[in-house]
């Protein structure tokens, strides 16, 4: 076969096209890119702005109140005339409610996920998962009143001497609130474990439970830890439920049956009141917010290192 002449050598053929980008297309690309960039920058600037304000106001706060008082006082009374600034009071309440919520949500959530992933028929799974996700969509203020008006009376009937506002009720209900998150995300992680791994175990004579406990959960471990950590962050940051059900009296206690005030509940209390701008009370909410921010940051860092250490790779 001989080489044919180029088609554009024929008379009337269109002119050869240049490889240069047409101007119109270049402009269009530019116009598409700009809003995308702006959208990305909005979230970055917001984050930077929040951190900057937190840092600035916290700095101001520690100008007036020394750090050691913040860390060592055992009372929290910035709104009274005799002021104490022991963050440990609010921190203990946050830890108490979050820990209680974890005790409820982690085992239940993991068991629910194992059930959904390994035991439930596809029909049951299709029905249950959306219900769980609806549970995640209930406004937290509804949960708060559920805790105060439904759970607390039950607790009071079961355990005499339980106060109207108490940590246990809030912890239980936060646990219920984050349960769908734990189970749904854990189930996703388990569903991603290859079927071949399960079949290998079944073929060795493993029961369903052995497959779940010895193959699926270890293989999905990193995803499950990620679910747990997200849930803990949610519990630590939860505001409405604790503000409504746990009370607003800062008390340094380990008892779940008395009124307490968490870090988030304190911020709400001050923000809703008529605290003048720039006053010391006003600055306390930034100091508390900073402490809360550091707490969740520490949780995130901890979860990253846990993930890095325990990751089980599978093909």
């Amino acid at each position: 076969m001989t080489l044919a002449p180029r088609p554009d050598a024929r008379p009337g053929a269109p002119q050869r096209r240049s490889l240069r980008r047409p101007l119109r297309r270049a402009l269009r690309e530019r116009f598409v890119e700009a809003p995308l960039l702006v959208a990305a920058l909005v979230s970055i600037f917001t984050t930077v702005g929040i951190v900057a304000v937190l840092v600035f106001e916290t700095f101001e706060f520690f100008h007036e109140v020394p750090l050691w008082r913040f860390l060592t006082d055992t009372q929290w009374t910035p709104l009274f005339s005799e002021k104490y600034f022991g963050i440990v009071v609010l921190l203990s309440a946050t830890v108490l409610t979050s820990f209680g919520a974890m005790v409820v949500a982690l085992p239940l959530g993991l068991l629910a996920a194992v059930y959904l992933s390994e035991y439930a028929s596809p029909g049951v799974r299709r029905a249950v998962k959306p219900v769980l996700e609806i549970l995640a969509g209930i406004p937290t203020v509804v949960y708060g009143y559920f805790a105060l008006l439904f759970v607390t009376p039950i607790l009071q009937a079961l355990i005499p001497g339980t106060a109207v506002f108490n940590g246990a009720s809030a912890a239980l209900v936060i646990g219920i609130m984050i349960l769908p998150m734990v189970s749904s995300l854990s189930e996703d992680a388990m569903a991603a474990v290859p079927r071949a791994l399960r079949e290998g175990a079944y073929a060795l004579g493993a029961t369903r439970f052995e497959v779940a406990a010895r193959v699926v959960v270890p293989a999905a471990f990193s995803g499950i830890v990620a679910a747990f950590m997200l849930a803990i962050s949610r519990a630590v940051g939860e505001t409405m439920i604790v503000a409504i059900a746990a009370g607003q009296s800062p008390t340094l206690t380990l008892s779940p049956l008395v009124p307490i005030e968490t870090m988030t509940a304190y911020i709400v209390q001050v923000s809703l009141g008529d605290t003048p701008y720039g006053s010391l009370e006003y600055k306390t909410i930034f100091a508390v917010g900073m402490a809360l921010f550091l707490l969740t940051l520490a949780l995130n860092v901890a979860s990253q290192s846990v993930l890095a250490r325990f990751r089980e790779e599978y093909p």
Partner: protein
Amino acid sequence: MVNDSASLATGLRSALAALSADRVVARVGAAAGADSAPAFAIRGLSLWYGHFQALRDITLDVASRRITALIGPSGCGKSTLLRCLNRMNELIPQVRIGGQVLFQGEDLYAPQTDPVEVRRRIGMVFQKPNPVPKSVYDNVAFGLRINGYQGKLDDLVERALRRAALWDEVRDKLRQSGLALSGGQQQRLCIARALAVEPEVLLMDEPCSALDPIATYKIEELMTELKRDYTIVIVTHNMQQASRVSDYTAFMLAGEDRAGALVECGETRSFFTNPRDKRTEDYVTGRFG
């Protein structure tokens, strides 16, 4: 004893029924000499995934301590048939099974049969090596542990790895991840894992399809070695492999409605050189499939 004679009776009855219905009865077990009792007697086995029939009326004997190869084009149901032999299919929802599979005279699908016990005695090796993301040692010990072996497993692990012709290659890597081994080593690790629990049968679902020729050769050599103690059923795409390693060959083909059926089976020696069925001849001579 009572149970034995009862199951023998049902076995005989179904065998007679099969004969009178003029089905393709594969009496390969009868030719096996000393081990004349078949390991598996499959009688009129059908299987449905929902409304789709994947297997139709399969009747086949599988000889004890021999290698039986299941061959056929993709989608003919040979893997499905293999998975009926250790009840792996019922892990898939909406599977229905009709007919009988007798293992040493016992009905695998009887209500009182425990699928966990079935799978412990009938081991399986899969198409893709599937070690768990744990150490070589733990992979082999896994089956032992779930079957309740206590105490020191070292000797049992070593024995299983030796049997799978892997010991010399991994003796210094027992604590390394099983996934760090090569594909062929991983597959032998899976064989070792299956052998560790002392099964009576080894089902192999295209065990070499993900391996290179040298690894394939090692696995085939191993199979020939293992058949002295184990009944082996292997599904393979590769007709050369079937003719190299197997004693008996069964050929399956999907019908018009895509339901897999048995076409022909017999001793491998005559199967490839002297097929009785025209479709078998077309397949083994490479005219389709």
